[in-house]
């Protein structure tokens, strides 16, 4: 996954070459984060590459590798879900407050069906191979909270696996 690049991005031709060689990989990675939501993936990938053009054009970046692109995708995705988390938390509160117990874990059919934060944690932990503290740092959570998040995601997926069996 990381054997592409790095590319020099000091002019239009080299920038487009970088784009042509990397976009499929970046897109696949972004789609795993978004749960195969094509519209969100399109937006995410577009943001990353247009951001790349700006920093290359300004001369603040001369060389870019897949690591930079994956990191940019991850950060933009996480920035997005932090904003979206507000609404999610509000709904979660409505579900939780009456008796203090979390609502029943809804059914999922794979990573794509997990809530954004759980899916992000799973992708970072198991597909990007980040350690739990590293995932926690990316998600701005405690390690304890991250472990809980991962456990909840695994529990949902395991429950679905049992139902499928």
């Amino acid at each position, binding site marked *: 996954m990381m054997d592409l690049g790095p590319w020099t991005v000091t002019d239009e031709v080299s920038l487009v070459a970088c784009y042509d060689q990397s976009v499929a990989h970046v897109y696949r990675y972004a789609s795993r984060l978004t749960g*195969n939501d094509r519209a969100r993936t399109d937006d995410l990938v*577009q943001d990353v590459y247009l951001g790349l053009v700006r920093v290359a054009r300004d001369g603040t*970046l001369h060389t870019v590798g897949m690591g930079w692109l994956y990191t940019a995708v991850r950060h933009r995705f996480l920035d997005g879900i932090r904003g979206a988390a507000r609404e999610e*938390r509000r709904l979660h509160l409505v579900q939780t407050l009456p008796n203090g117990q979390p609502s029943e874990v809804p059914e999922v059919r794979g990573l*794509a069906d997990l809530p954004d934060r759980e899916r992000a944690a799973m992708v970072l932990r*198991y597909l990007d191979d980040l350690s739990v503290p590293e995932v926690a740092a990316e998600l701005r959570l405690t390690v304890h909270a991250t472990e809980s998040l991962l456990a909840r995601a695994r529990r949902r997926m395991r429950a679905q696996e049992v139902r499928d069996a």
Partner: protein
Amino acid sequence: MPDTEIERMAGDGLEPTPTFVASLREQMRGEWHLGSDVVAPPRLRQWRGVAGLVAAAAAIVGIGLLTQRGADTGSIVGVDSTAPTTSPPATSPTEGLPDSAFEQLWVITSVDGVAVVGSDMPTFTPHGDGTVTGWDGCNQYQLTPEGGESTTAGCPAGVTSVVARGPFVSDSLGVVRTDRFTAMRFERAPDEPAPAYRLDRQYVFGDVGRFALTAGGFVSVESAGCEMAVEVGWSIANGNFMTFLFDSIPDCSQLAPPFLAWLTQMRDVGSTYVFRDSPSPAMWTRVGDRVTRLAFAPEAIATETTG
């Protein structure tokens, strides 16, 4: 569940459509040329310079008015934490730092006298070879004694240039200062940092509200028997900060009016708040490029009491 199973359930991911690839390529080309197109001839650039000065002056006046309004009404005080800085050339990034400051994580708490807090707080760590590494509020950076500065791509204007410039002075309280910023030492925790918040205590904001931390990482906000729970997270990279949102105000008739007004004000800002208990407890938020804080009346500044 084995990792391979998770990999299988993750699937291969989507392929971009040819239309998307072609369209984005054209957008990138357009964006690239947009950059060169805006290089105006000298005469136009001169007017742009004037326009820029006017805009900058307007922005300063705007910030001043906002700050004044905050001071007058006790509402929100805003500061532009990302304004470009004009620091003198670097001598050494670590000049003036005591030996005890090296290999420590420092968090910049204020720039030009204005507090900078939140999960994007910049950090720096001076090293024995004269280099400085850290987080500029957006990404990692490194400074070298030769003046090298590997800063961040794709980030808004940050405070890296401020971080770069000594000389430092330090005091006995674990604080270092330059003529631009103040920084406090934080314990570096490579694994899980122990939350700095005492879970066996309650944090009281004057007479408007009470924050009780629990071992589960939640905050209870109580007022006249009405309780609200909000989700909490701690930032690892930049020390221990507790962030939470005031997007759900309980429908509770017992809410004390000052407390309700306070909650409403925080909710209306509409951003994640950061609670920091050192050096004095305070609540901050960041809206866009602007760091704002809820302007407490002096008597309403948080005090820590045993719970």
